[in-house]
């Protein structure tokens, strides 16, 4: 097989007012025909800028030097109109955010048809036929209707399918996928990745897949480039990189991803408990929470949607209990209801001995003190107009208004040390802190009232992998040191498996399955749970290959 694309000494830099930033530094690689190449790296590694520069899509202040030879033509040296004869025709591209990557103002059909009008001589009717056929091929039901419809009528996964169909219209030689599944739920991710593999075979294309997830690479790619801070760290065949990595950085990445991994990922610190103390901190019986859907007109009938639908569960003292589910599963609504931020519509909910029911929205201060929360977005969970000191002082003013000033400051200092910060942070504002530091402050704030129950609502989801591991360590340590009970809401199954004693699986507001973490993960009873677990890509190419074969045989 010959080389489809040969990149030599690719350097991408951005000019800002004060300095020039080097995003990609003398990168060279080759891609053969019909080959799938994965480019992995953490944020800031330059992996996206690499492909954007090849496609001529850099921001205005960016420039690229070096060579990117495609069929012997250096793409970097082409004029815009020359480049337009290649991109969209020979090279197709799909992006991370399928929500915003399609034009919401014109029909899907007209967007797709324009590509064919630009690159082929087909008549209008032939173009439409081809588009509908392609929508059908990528698994979109009722393709004619979608052709005439708009992108906002579709789910995220369906939009990504439309993007793929658009890219395939001209039967390109190369498909570039820039984090194509990062914004999607895991079960949808699985389907999109399988679709990419399937169309690769059908159209005999090469694929470049950009991702931060080593599992995604293990599942789909044949060759791998590892990048860090704009430089190539290592390149090679998939198995070689995963099973005998040469570079230190690759080993580090792999270790991190294996530490938190669905397969064989029991945390040694997780204590073996034979029996739980039967002290129930939270007891939910048939709890439902209903929301009003936005009304269509002033006199339209009220429409309700159940965010939480007849949930029965309990939280036992001293455990870390995980709630997992995909977007729309109601896991966050459930935790907000326990916190008293959301009214119970029906059912019985007893939290720390107090009944929360639909009549009562007021939650006593003493109860508030005993449960605290840490949210997902580290920046938006701290008031940007308050200093760290003011933020940490607030719970003390609320719950311990009789304490002396000096006692308060001692406590703030102690808790900062406990979460791994120090008093130098007190005078700063949240925007001066990193994401991980903000999350530590949020945890410190939650600890100050000395709660019994800590709710972590996707508390580690927005963090980079290395920071995530640190915060998880901190949570586990706090649980052991303080005897905290933690309700851990997450969509990341691997993290849940690592630290949780028990797990609740939710789907569409209902509990699908619950039980001891290991039992649920090793031997899931429900089909939904099985699917959910097997959809998560694992950084183990052999296992992923075997799984894919299983999926294919199941499909046939």
């Amino acid at each position: 097989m010959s080389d489809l694309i040969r990149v030599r000494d690719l350097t991408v830099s951005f000019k800002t007012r004060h300095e020039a930033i080097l995003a990609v530094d003398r990168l060279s690689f080759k891609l053969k025909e019909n080959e799938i190449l994965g480019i992995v790296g953490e944020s800031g590694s330059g992996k996206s800028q690499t492909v954007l520069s090849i496609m001529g899509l850099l921001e205005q202040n960016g420039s690229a030097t070096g060579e990117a030879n495609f069929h012997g033509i250096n793409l970097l040296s082409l004029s815009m109109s020359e480049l337009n004869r290649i991109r969209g025709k020979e090279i197709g591209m799909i992006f991370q955010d399928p929500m915003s990557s399609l034009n919401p103002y014109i029909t899907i059909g007209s967007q797709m048809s324009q590509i064919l009008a630009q690159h082929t001589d087909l008549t209008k009717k032939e173009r439409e036929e081809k588009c509908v056929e392609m929508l059908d091929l990528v698994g979109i039901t009722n393709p004619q209707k979608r052709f005439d419809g708009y992108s906002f009528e579709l789910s995220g996964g369906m939009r990504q399918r439309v993007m793929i169909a658009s890219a395939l219209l001209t039967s390109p030689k190369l498909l570039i996928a820039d984090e194509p599944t990062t914004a999607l739920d895991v079960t949808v991710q699985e389907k999109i990745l399988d679709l990419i593999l399937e169309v690769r075979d059908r159209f005999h294309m090469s694929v470049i897949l950009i991702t931060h997830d080593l599992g995604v690479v293990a599942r789909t790619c044949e060759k791998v480039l590892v990048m860090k801070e704009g430089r190539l760290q290592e390149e090679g065949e998939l198995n070689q990189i995963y099973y005998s990595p040469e570079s230190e950085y690759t080993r580090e990445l792999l270790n991190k991803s294996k530490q938190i991994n669905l397969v064989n990922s029991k945390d040694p610190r997780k204590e073996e408990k034979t029996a739980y103390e039967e002290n129930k901190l939270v007891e939910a019986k048939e709890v439902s929470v209903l929301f009003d859907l936005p009304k269509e007109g002033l006199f339209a009938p009220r429409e309700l949607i159940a965010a939480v639908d007849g949930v029965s569960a309990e939280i036992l003292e001293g455990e870390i209990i995980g709630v997992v589910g995909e977007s729309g599963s109601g896991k966050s609504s459930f935790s907000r209801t326990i916190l008293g931020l959301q009214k119970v519509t029906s059912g019985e909910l007893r939290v720390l001995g107090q009944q929360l029911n639909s009549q009562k929205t007021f939650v006593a201060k003493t109860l508030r003190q005993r449960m605290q929360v840490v949210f997902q977005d580290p920046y938006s969970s701290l008031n940007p107009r308050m200093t760290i000191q003011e933020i940490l002082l607030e719970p003390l003013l609320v719950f311990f208004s009789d304490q002396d000033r000096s006692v308060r400051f001692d406590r703030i200092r102690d808790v900062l040390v406990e979460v791994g910060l120090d008093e130098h942070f007190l005078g700063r504002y949240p925007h001066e802190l990193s994401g991980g530091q903000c999350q530590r402050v949020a945890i410190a704030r939650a600890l100050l009232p000395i709660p019994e129950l800590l709710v972590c609502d996707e508390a580690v989801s927005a963090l980079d992998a290395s920071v995530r591991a640190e915060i998880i360590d901190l949570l586990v340590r706090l649980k052991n040191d303080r005897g905290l009970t933690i309700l851990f809401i997450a969509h990341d199954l691997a993290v849940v498996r690592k630290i949780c004693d028990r797990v609740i699986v939710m789907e569409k507001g209902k509990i699908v399955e619950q039980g001891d973490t290991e039992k649920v993960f090793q031997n899931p009873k429900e089909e939904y749970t099985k699917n959910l677990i097997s959809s998560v890509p694992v950084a183990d190419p052999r296992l992923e290959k075997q799984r894919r074969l299983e999926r294919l045989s199941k499909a046939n």
Partner: protein
Amino acid sequence: MNPTNSLASDAWSALSKNRAAWFSAMALTTMVLLVLLGPLVSPHEVDQTNWSKLAKPPSMDDGHIFGTDDLGRDLFVRTMYGGRISLMVGIVATLVSVLIGVSYGAISGFVGGKVDSIMMRIVDVLYAMPFLFFVILLMVFFGRSIFLIFVAIGAVNWLDIARIVRGQTLTIKGKEFVDAAKAGGVSTFRIIFRHIVPNLMGIVVVYVALTVPQVILVESFLSFLGLGVQEPMTSWGALVNQGARQMESSPWILLFPALFLAVTLFCFNFIGDGLRDALDPKDRTNINE
């Protein structure tokens, strides 16, 4: 350190980076000083007529640097006095509308639900009213008092601010730090004044800067029609009106007040624009949603 300090420093760094806004702020400061101090140093009085110098063009010799009007009054002093009225109307009426708008918008956004939709529907309805004409009606019916101008203009201009503050309140209310405060047992009162209001200040500052020129414009419009400030008081609008009537023979009577008015509006607009780029966290096209 307190939140207003951090806001002030945000605004400061925003303005110092934006050269146009920076220049406008300097020009505006100069203008305010001139308007306040100018009449004090001038040898002429605002209502002092001089029959020997009717409609004289500007000249350095006799101290009438902007010339005189058709009654022989010194145009410089009159322009400065007019400026005092225009700026005062601008600032006072803006404060009235900001007060109404911020309270209305914040309540609507914070309470939410049915109250919110009713309150916003009222704003929608009021939006379609030709208020400027109602103000004129008020002037016609109730006589032309400067107090009425303040109230009337203030009452007209609060709608925009109410909408924007409500939108911003909704955004802040959805932020996780507000939920964290609620879950942390912080009282509603404290949540509003410690968490929501300080985060609204940015947008309020922006819209104060953008409302002042609008208000000055409305006052000038009324005065131009002869329905605003009455003699012996004057304002830039009234002076422009007077000047427009005799621009053929003595154009300076029009040009000086017109220049002051336009430059002031221009500076306020530029400052407001610069502040908005820096402080308005929300993307502008979404304001109406």
